[in-house]
């Protein structure tokens, strides 16, 4: 290895400016080896091009996969550089979209944090000392190490994860399946509320099945912890349109998020107590008979009979697909009490007049309707109780219940963030399903429930998959990433595309200890993200704007199919994902099974398309500037998707509110539970009195865009706190503060604001650790897992917000 080269990159932890300086000093070496060390020097040769000679071309592509926006972009490339990005024209103007994250790619693609060459670690893990190596060396080293680990511990001892920008959603993932690696199984990440509402409401991974554009038909819209205006920015138009059309927007959030600020009512609920408000609303709705009895009788399971003693649903047990999609499960052909005949009859018996309430004796057993049980259950959740738990006064809760039940069609937007990240999120999800089903606010135009930051329901379309040999599949272990640090496992090597570890696990110190214990860790990333410093081998990937071929990334997004046209050549020595996967798998001889290039993959993905994709071909996609609407794409999507009639995909075609499988957990109907850590009354609050919650900022998608030098002008890691909490600790606006608990700590800037509940700290996730003065926010977060959630569709969620800390001046 060239000694000078080694020195030049010996310390990757130096500041960016230091990095550029070092690059200048060793510029000659860099040039000689064909690697460039700063975007400035790399751009220099063509700098002098006269304006008149400049050549422009227009390229079309689909932007981010991870913010769930997927905007169609029109990029202008001048003299081989990305010069301008704007929204592409669309037939339905609502899809002509871009946000600041798309625009800033003009800088971000060229950011100083770009990984430029393959690197080999020379210092300790985490120290960030690397030397430049060649692609051949790097790939061989990855293969040698992975082979050694797999020989010793078996195929499943390799963990492979694709995350964030690198590859996700690009329609392929080869390294993991060909190496029979551990792929992480279900993540549970972002599915806390979905665990609770999906079985009843048949949402899709918590997403609303109705389109967000339908919101304009709603009279009341309740955002529960959702911050559309910063997460799914482009979708906020639907919310704003709805408000303009007269909808009342109510937002639950302990802080005045930009979405809360654009709402008619901000409900600054205590962290994790959204469930108390919803249960209080449910009780109030029942008490005032604001429920829709017809709807309940005909479209829900409320008249179904339940055995008082066992908690089991009354009816014939059968085998079928249950409401969370599990095949060959036991399902019950439920019974109702027919008031006409005074007997129990199957719910679907013609002419039956089901009793909505009542206690009956059936074959000597005491049975009651679900609704009767629910009423009993909810009795204790009075407005006063809810007010006490949530910090929202009883009158306000009653008013929200009134608005939800009586104002007309109402929609609940409960997101993947906020209350989703506490231990009682599934109870909240279930409680939301209860109020929706009581009031009939589900399965009607303008009345829906779910996550809307991906636009809600949209036309689906499945691309043709690249055929894999049968043996190419993931390990059976399904070890979740967030479990690896705390549960015994057999993983000894890891390859991640992007920063999986610091994004997908709480309590980062434990995760990092685990990473350090691995025999081998390689990372493929575009930027020098936090996890890079722990890797043994680093490979530079290119962004979606870069390609060696003309097209890549076929994708279905926002009711359209897109393909990404090449804008610029891969910068520095970076390569496309497909090239990288081919290079790695070539070490095993598996590259023969992979597409030779994107062209081959694109053609495969776009062949023999069916359903909404019928008629779309590679040729006509490209002829139409890389975008085609899905079938009927000319018609408004909101007319084509979602439940507009209350007939659902459950076995009974009704909303099934009673979770028989959770009788043992006491959650057949939602039972209030505190969260794991952040609740009032937790003795730990004496030591760590503040709740630490995270959310989105417009300047990030998770950690992505930390490198943007444009965004750095507006945003740096900061924690928002109420002035009273700050004053008690002698903290002033702009001070550096240490946020700490027993798990760890970090230092960032304090921002004092009246728009946050006293006792709560808010911080936007997340930023590369090098941009913090010390540590980073996942050092303090809670990695406990809720055991009961293993029984649920998505498994336990990560308790990112279920966290107590204290803060002091750094």
């Amino acid at each position, binding site marked *: 290895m060239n000694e000078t080269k080694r020195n030049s990159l010996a310390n990757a932890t130096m500041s960016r*400016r230091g990095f550029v300086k070092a690059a200048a000093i060793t510029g000659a070496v860099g040039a000689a080896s064909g690697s460039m060390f700063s975007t400035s020097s790399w751009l220099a040769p063509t700098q002098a091009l006269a304006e008149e000679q400049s050549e422009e071309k227009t390229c079309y592509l689909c932007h981010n996969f991870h913010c769930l926006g997927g905007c169609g972009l029109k990029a202008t490339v001048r003299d081989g550089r990305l010069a301008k990005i704007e929204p592409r024209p669309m037939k339905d103007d609502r899809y002509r979209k871009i946000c600041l994250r798309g625009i800033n790619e003009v800088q971000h693609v060229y950011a100083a944090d770009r990984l430029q060459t393959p690197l080999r670690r020379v210092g300790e893990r985490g120290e960030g000392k690397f030397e430049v190596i060649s692609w051949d060396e790097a790939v061989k080293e990855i293969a040698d190490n992975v082979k050694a680990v797999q020989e010793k511990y078996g195929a499943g001892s390799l963990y492979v994860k694709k995350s964030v920008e690198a590859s996700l959603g690009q329609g392929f993932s080869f390294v993991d399946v060909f190496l029979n690696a551990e792929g992480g199984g279900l993540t549970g990440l972002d599915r806390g509320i979905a665990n609770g509402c999906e079985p009843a409401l048949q949402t899709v991974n918590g997403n609303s099945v109705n389109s967000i554009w339908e919101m304009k038909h709603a009279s009341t819209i309740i955002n529960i912890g959702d911050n559309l205006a910063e997460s799914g920015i482009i979708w906020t138009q639907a919310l704003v349109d709805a408000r303009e059309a007269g909808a009342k927007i109510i937002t639950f959030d302990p802080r005045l998020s930009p979405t809360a600020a654009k709402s008619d009512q901000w409900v600054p609920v205590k962290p994790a107590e959204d469930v108390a408000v919803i249960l209080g609303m449910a009780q109030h709705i029942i008490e005032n008979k604001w429920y829709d009895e017809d709807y309940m009788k005909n479209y829900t399971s409320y008249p179904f009979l339940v055995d008082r003693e066992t908690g089991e649903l009354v009816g014939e047990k059968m085998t079928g697909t249950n409401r969370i999609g599990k095949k060959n499960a036991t399902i019950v052909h439920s019974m109702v009490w027919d008031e006409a005949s005074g007997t129990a009859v199957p719910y679907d018996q013609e002419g039956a007049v089901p009793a909505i309430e009542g206690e009956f004796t059936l074959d000597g057993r005491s049975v009651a309707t679900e609704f009767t049980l629910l009423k009993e259950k909810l009795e204790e959740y009075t407005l006063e109780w809810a007010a006490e738990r949530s910090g929202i006064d009883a009158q306000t809760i009653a008013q929200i219940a009134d608005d939800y039940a009586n104002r007309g069609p109402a929609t609940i937007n409960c997101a993947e963030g906020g209350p989703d990240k506490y231990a009682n999120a599934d109870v909240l999800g279930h409680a939301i399903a209860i109020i929706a089903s009581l009031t009939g606010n589900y399965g009607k135009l303008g009345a829906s429930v779910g996550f809307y930051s991906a636009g809600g329901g949209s036309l689906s379309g499945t691309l043709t998959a690249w055929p894999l040999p049968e043996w190419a599949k993931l390990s059976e272990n399904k070890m979740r990433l967030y479990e690896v640090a705390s549960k015994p496992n057999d993983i000894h090597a890891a390859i991640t595309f992007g920063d999986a570890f610091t994004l997908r696990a709480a309590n980062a110190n434990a995760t990092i200890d685990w990473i350090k214990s691995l025999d081998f860790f390689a990372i493929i990333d575009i930027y020098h993200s936090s996890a890079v410093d722990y890797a043994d081998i680093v490979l530079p990937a290119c962004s979606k704007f870069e390609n060696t071929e003309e097209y890549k990334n076929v994708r279905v997004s926002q009711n359209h199919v897109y393909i990404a046209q090449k804008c610029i050549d891969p910068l520095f020595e970076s390569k496309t994902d497909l090239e990288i996967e081919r290079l790695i798998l070539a070490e095993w001889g598996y590259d023969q099974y992979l597409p030779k290039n994107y062209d081959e993959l694109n053609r495969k993905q776009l062949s023999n398309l069916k359903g909404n994709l019928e008629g779309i071909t590679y040729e006509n996609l490209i002829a139409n500037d890389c975008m085609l609407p899905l079938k009927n794409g000319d018609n408004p999507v909101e007319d084509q998707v979602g439940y507009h009639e209350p007939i659902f995909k459950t076995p009974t075609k009704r909303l099934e509110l009673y979770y028989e499988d959770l009788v043992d957990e006491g959650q057949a109907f939602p039972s209030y539970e505190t969260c794991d850590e952040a609740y009032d009354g937790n003795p730990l609050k004496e030591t760590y009195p503040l709740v630490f919650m995270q959310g989105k900022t417009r300047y990030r998608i998770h950690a992505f865009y930390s490198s943007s*030098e444009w965004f*750095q*002008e*507006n945003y*740096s890691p900061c924690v928002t706190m109420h002035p009273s909490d700050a004053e008690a600790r002698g903290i002033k606006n702009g001070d550096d503060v240490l946020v700490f608990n027993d798990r760890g700590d970090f230092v960032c800037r304090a921002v004092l604001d009246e728009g946050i509940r006293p006792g709560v700290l808010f911080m936007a996730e997340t930023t590369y650790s090098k941009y913090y003065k010390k540590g980073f926010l996942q050092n303090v977060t809670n990695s406990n897992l809720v055991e009961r959630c293993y029984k649920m569709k998505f498994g336990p969620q990560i308790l990112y917000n279920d966290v107590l800390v204290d803060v002091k001046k750094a």
Partner: protein
Amino acid sequence: MQTNTFKKPVLGVFGVLAVIGVACWIYQLANGLAVTGMSNANSWGLYICMFMLFVGLSAGGLIVASSAHVFGIDKFKTVAKPAVICSTACICVAGMLVLVDLGGIAKVWRILTGPNFMSPLLWDMCIITIYLVINILDLVWMQKGDEDKVRKLSYVALPVAILVHSVTAWIFGLQIARAWYTAIMAPIFVASALDSGLALLLLGLILLDKVNIAKFDNSLMASLGKLLATFIAVDAYFVACELLTMAYPGAGEAVALSEMLTGATAPFFWFEIICGLLVPFVILAITKNREKRGIIVLASVLVVLGVACKRVWLLFTSFIHPNVYGGPGIASGTFDAQQNPADMWMLLGSYAPTFVEILVVIGVVSVGVLIFMILSNKLIAGEGASSTHTTKTSE
């Protein structure tokens, strides 16, 4: 009478300072105005502040000299020449300060090829040029002993002197964007010009007397001192009018007012009120004091410093609070902002001069001092001994 001149070593010191100033200005030309402490939130700094001061300082001289003729105050005629020299030096300094403040001095000819006659800055450049010409003509004719022309010129010079300060005031006073927007701005400028200019003239006269270039008797000093006290009172009166107008509505400009009274510019404001107006007025109001040169020097220095402070609070208070306020603020556009993204925004205007700026100002002022000394050497020294203009020095 034994006369003297300013010695070469003294000239040399100011010459060196002037050269340092020029060097700093060249540095500024090479790197841009970012080497100053100015920013997008506080777009004028020490240069314009000192420009305001020196336009004012140049006034006293010409007004006293012209009054001597216009109002027939004979005893003032003896100080006419040093007064005009002082005035000339100050207006040169003021003019240079405008030029060093320009971001694109190479394009300054654009003012000639495409002047916008609506611009107070254009008016000011014109009036300053006229003013300079009058000063020079005055000197030339005085030197030639052409009393008649000097007398006639005085009738022009007096209104022009008043106008030059008014126009400078209008650069600020016509800006609707700032707290400067007030009709009293011109009278305040004239009043400040009168007291600070006269104070500077007194200091100049005493200096010339001290180094034996010319001799002035105490009664002249006393009557000038009395005049100064009157000017101070007028100045104080206008300032009081402006403060009342700012304070009374309790809205809009109240923010700027509280910044002046208790905020960032308060030290300058209170120095001016107490040390620049109150103390010198009290001192000079006592007849006995006006006989003592030491006391006149003290009062004059205080007046000049007081007016300098007034320029500071007058200029900078208006930059502190943007009319449309909110986070993240104003993009500052400075070197810091370019280099450290976290330093991009300024919520409030703030300013501190850099060394470069200070040295440029010292350099420019040194040029002014040199002009004063050299013209004094050439035009005054030896006058008392002979009527020829030969500058005799007795070592």
